């Protein structure tokens, strides 16, 4: 079944990550045999997602909370289609716009203006579509004369303003935002929240990963609490946040057996 625009479906989604520092395999290992046979045993892989099932309907606002390593960012990257699953399935409908890390896809020697084009292109837009949005994006970013300076000269707040301005003007059906808004000053944060609210009113879906309980409370009607790669709680934010706060006292998620 194809999901509707703005709909996200995760079914029994599982994904483990190797936590080795040397992530690449070598040809020797390929030729001689298994990785485990030729390397000293390292830490076992971490199960970032462990049978996560979520159904998010168009227009929903969903917060995702949990301790560090609970699988929030992995879930977002799976939803964004960047990381494939080991098992289970993920389906999303419509244009997915991600705001994962600051400066994603920014060429540091390029000006702000040029990066608007590069970022738009990364999201599959053509030159004409980007040009049509350029003025709005630059105005929203409040960068002034800096739009024609290389982004290498930007402060992290300026990075965020440009990145958010671009993401906010890509006509997202689904907005995936990971913990980046905190970098902006209060005035810009408010502006971002207003902009997101407008997009949601227009029918967009929001998934927001944040440690800022107040932000989640303001922006999200529903909240998913992740713990050790599993959904520990999924329901109205008013009930989810107390659950999350109680959970914060429990020990760290253990790595799964290899």
């Amino acid at each position, binding site marked *: 079944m194809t999901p509707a625009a703005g709909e996200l479906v995760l079914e029994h989604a599982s994904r483990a990550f190797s936590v080795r520092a040397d992530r*690449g*395999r070598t*040809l020797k290992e390929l030729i001689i045999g298994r990785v485990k046979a030729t390397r000293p045993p390292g830490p076992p892989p971490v199960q970032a997602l462990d049978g996560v099932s979520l159904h998010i309907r168009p227009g929903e606002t969903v917060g995702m909370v949990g301790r560090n390593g609970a699988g929030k960012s992995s879930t977002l990257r799976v939803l964004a289609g960047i*990381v494939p699953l080991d098992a289970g399935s993920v389906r999303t409908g419509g244009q997915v716009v991600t705001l994962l890390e600051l400066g994603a896809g920014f060429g540091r*020697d390029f000006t702000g203006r040029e990066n608007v084009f590069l970022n738009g*292109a*990364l999201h599959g837009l053509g030159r004409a579509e980007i040009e049509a949005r350029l003025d709005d994006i630059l105005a929203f970013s409040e960068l002034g004369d800096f739009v024609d300076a290389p982004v290498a000269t930007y402060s992290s707040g300026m990075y965020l303003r440009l990145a958010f301005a671009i993401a906010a003007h890509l006509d997202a059906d689904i907005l995936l935002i990971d913990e980046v808004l905190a970098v902006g000053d209060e005035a810009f944060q408010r502006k971002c929240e207003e902009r997101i609210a407008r997009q949601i009113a227009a029918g967009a879906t929001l998934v927001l990963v944040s440690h800022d309980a107040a932000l989640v409370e303001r922006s999200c009607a529903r909240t998913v609490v992740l713990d050790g790669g599993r959904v520990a709680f999924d329901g109205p934010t008013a009930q989810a946040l107390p659950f999350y706060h109680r959970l914060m006292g429990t020990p760290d998620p253990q790595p799964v057996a290899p």
Partner: protein
Amino acid sequence: MIPGVAHPHRYLFEQMVRRELRQKYKGSALGIAWYLVNPLVLMGAYYLLFGVIFELQRIPDFPLFLMVGLVVWIFFSQSLLSAAPSLLDHGALIRKARFPRETIPASVVAVQAITFVVLLVALGVVTVVLRGTLDVALLLLPVVLLALLGFVLGLSLAVAVLHAHFRDVAPILSAALLPWFFLSPIFFRPEDITGQALARAALEWGNPVAPYIEAVRAILYGGAAPGPDVLAYVLAGAAVSLLFGLALFRRLAAELAVLV
């Protein structure tokens, strides 16, 4: 240019090529001109070696003979060498955004192709004028060059995605390219090296780059169309390389965001 990048991300490809062109030599005095300096220095060095020191004078207009073969080789080898680490170099992009990953090695190859065409046009004009090889066979040159591009692109895709998985690929490649260069008919004609039919066939057909060098040289230096066997080899080589490269890339690209 390649099927996967054709429609919605065509503009992305354009942007990536521009980024590649600008970023690499940004801040250096010569800027983009560095793309031409490297091959020119190589050509000068090899000319000194084979044209002056060893004086391979049996071949008429040896400098032109050498240069035509050399530009083809430089395009081939530089494309593979720069494609191999390209996915790792763009790790930040791959980890954060979803887009056709083929765009990255393809844009690296495109930049090399632009350099190659600039060099080849300049050299081609000189060769055709000095050798008097203006011939209808020149019309075949675009076909041969497109086939060469396909051949190089397919191999570059394979090398790039393999290197992301197995970090030995780039060092193996740079080690292999040196003997490969000396076995390629760049500064010699196979018939001058050996009278043995088998050895000659191995030099002419066993090395997949050789027919591309032979075809370009037949047209520009020889002023004649390459033989039908060479043309068939060149076109088939492009098709095989592209199909193999794309299939391998698609198969191994899913995990890239985790690997790079």
